């Protein structure tokens, strides 16, 4: 098999070389190929990264307010939310994309993360006074104030633990039952935080008002004087930029972790389970443990994002956590391509942007330019209907997503063209599926 692939590759290379020679671009092409492989491999990602990291710097020179259709580019503040939601989508991708477990309650992890930040870095518990590396808070303030950096880690670990606790009893269930159980948890946890303002008289979550204010990240005064790092983000003039760069850092960390995980022993086990659970079990993969790991790691990233966005918004409110968010995140994973990190990142950025300001802007543009007066439509009102349409259309016509995973493309190539193009979906089938007629791969 490898030999055949090499032959195919070299002939393809030859064809491409001919084409570029004809067009006179071969100088550039040859120069590109002489570069070492890591440079070639990573330069698109690095270019993208530089473009993203400098976004707050060149945003002011981009046209604003008169861009056709989208009105203006997202503000730095919106961009933070976009990045955090993209991080969550990448985390959900571990569960849904790698391991093939449909999770309809990812919002529960978001909520656990946000409320952990609320408990450990705010004045919620007035009964105690505990400070540990907190910044931007006077030392006499009551409540638990732990450094946000530590809280992010704690929230992620606690959420991962929550994922394990939810996963252990439920992961035995087959696909659709698992989906409905996760949905149940996704509904219970927000209702719990909404109602847990007097558990035997103890105010755990401050009910519908939510926990606010939550401390912001920062490096403290000593590091500010010695290294010039910001003391506390919220007190900084350019707070949004600082939040933006930190969010970008978290997203990159998440992406790197997910890529490394995918290629690890654990990741290969996930993909094996996704492709055929029975066969994977027969090959000696411990099903329960592997699936629980997928759940815990997916939850981990949900928790870290939840805690971070709570710190960014300086609050955690129960109205943020509803089923719609779970479906919104699922929509990102489906649109991008289940299992495809870059696909999910692209879809995550696009959909979160639509959610934050894109749809409203596009709606205004449509009402001004397309729809006649009197037939105006509030586009943003139907955002979840639009996501529903995206989900249904993707499932019907392009189930592999916009940017399918490279592994799947290779699989299709290797199968010599007689594999079904939408074979990616057959990999999702549960082992006990009744009407499965998937053509075997390879």
């Amino acid at each position, binding site marked *: 098999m490898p030999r055949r692939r090499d032959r195919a590759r070299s002939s393809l290379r030859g064809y491409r070389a001919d084409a570029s020679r004809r067009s006179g671009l071969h100088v550039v092409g040859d120069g590109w190929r002489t570069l070492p492989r890591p440079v070639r491999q990573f330069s698109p990602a690095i270019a993208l990264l530089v473009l993203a990291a400098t976004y707050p710097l060149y945003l002011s020179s981009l046209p604003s307010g008169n861009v056709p259709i989208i009105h203006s580019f997202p503000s730095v503040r919106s961009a933070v939310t976009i990045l955090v939601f993209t991080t969550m989508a990448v985390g959900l991708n571990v569960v849904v994309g790698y391991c093939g477990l449909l999770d309809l309650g990812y919002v529960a992890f978001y909520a656990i993360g946000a409320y952990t930040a609320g408990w450990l870095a705010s004045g919620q518990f007035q009964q105690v006074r505990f400070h540990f590396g907190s910044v931007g808070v006077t030392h006499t303030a009551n409540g638990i104030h732990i450094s946000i950096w530590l809280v992010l880690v704690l929230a992620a670990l606690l959420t991962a633990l929550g994922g394990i606790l939810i996963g252990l*009893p439920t992961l035995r269930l087959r696909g659709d039952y698992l989906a*409905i159980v996760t949905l*149940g948890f996704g509904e219970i946890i927000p209702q719990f935080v909404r*109602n847990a303002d007097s558990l035997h008289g103890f105010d755990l979550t401050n009910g519908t008002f939510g926990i606010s204010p939550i401390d912001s990240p920062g490096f403290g005064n000593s590091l500010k004087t010695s290294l010039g790092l910001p003391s506390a983000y919220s007190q900084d003039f350019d707070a949004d930029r600082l939040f933006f760069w930190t969010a970008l850092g978290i997203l990159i960390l998440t992406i790197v972790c997910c890529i490394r995980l995918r290629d690890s022993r654990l990741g290969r086990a996930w993909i094996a389970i996704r492709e055929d659970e029975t066969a994977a079990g027969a090959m000696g993969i411990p099903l329960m443990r592997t699936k629980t790991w997928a759940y815990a790691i997916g939850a981990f990233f949900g928790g870290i994002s939840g805690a971070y966005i709570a710190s960014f918004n300086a609050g955690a409110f129960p109205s943020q956590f509803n089923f719609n968010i779970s479906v919104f995140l699922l929509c990102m994973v489906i649109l991008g391509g289940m299992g495809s990190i870059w696909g999910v990142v692209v879809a995550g950025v696009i959909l979160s942007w639509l959610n934050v300001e894109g749809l409203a802007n596009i709606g205004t543009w449509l009402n001004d330019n397309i729809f006649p007066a009197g037939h105006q439509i509030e586009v943003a009102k139907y955002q979840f209907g639009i*996501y*529903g349409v995206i989900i249904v259309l993707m*499932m019907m016509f392009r189930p592999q997503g916009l940017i399918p995973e490279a592994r799947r493309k290779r699989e299709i190539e290797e199968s010599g063209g007689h594999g079904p193009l939408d074979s990616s979906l057959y990999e*999702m089938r549960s082992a006990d599926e009744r*009407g499965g007629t998937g053509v075997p791969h390879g």
Partner: protein
Amino acid sequence: MLFLAWLGWNLADRPTDFFNIFLIGLTQGSVYALVALGYTLVYGILQLINFAHGDVFALTGLFASSLITDRFQLDETSTALVIVGGLLATFLICMAFGALVNATIELVAYRRLRSAPRLAVLITAVGMSFIVQNISLAIFNVNFRSVPPLISDSNVFTVGGVHYSWQALFVVLVTAPVLVLLTWLVKSTRQGKAMRATAQDPEASAMMGINVNRTISFTFLLAGGLAGIGAVLFLVEFNVRYDTGFELGLIAFTAAVLGGIGNLSGAVLGAIIIGMIQAFNEGPFLWAPGSDWTRSIVFGILIAILVFRPEGLLGERTPEGG
């Protein structure tokens, strides 16, 4: 056990309230039963949790509200004959409406995915749920809609403080014959036999000359019709909004799972139990957690059943479920 003890203690403590709540639970459960049957019918034949079902229910309810208030202009001052006639017409139209919407969803979204894996269809169902919900939103806007109290709130009988209202009687009077009719339809007619055969083994049924696609369409029609009846009954007592269907649908689905999904009498039993649990939870009893926690309790039950007894109360242990 603890729950039963709690019930018994309440019965001894405040018997009047107990029976009142019991009747409320029965009424509520009847409405849930009609919706739960829709889930169970579809699941039985396609192994699909039709997420859009609850939203079809809400859309039909909104449609019914506009029929009753705008088209027929019924209110409490109309004569009894007009009310009965109007409601009968509403029932028939809404049955047809719900059935058509449900069958259209199947035709447009699910049929193309017949050979796709189950999760793909499930994800599509979630998408359809949002689409139907937004259709309701587009047509009927965000406000709650209700109808004037057509059925009198006064009591049919009162025994020692236990009240039984006309409204409650009305719900039971409509539900019971519908259930009988449904049983007859599934058990004794040719189409019902085809449904049961397809549920057991679609390929073998196709070989035996059953038109599987038509049978599935028929199932969706039936489920939609039941949701239509349920929606009108719900509307007579409560108000409806575009997103009412989501939560009610989940409760009804829980009921179907509790009774054993795919099992018709199980769905009815489960629905009545869930109705009771909800009523007692919201009732004026000691240590009743109250309506704030209803959703958590219902989903807690759902999770517990799926984890410990996935085949439900009346269902059979299947290889998939066990």
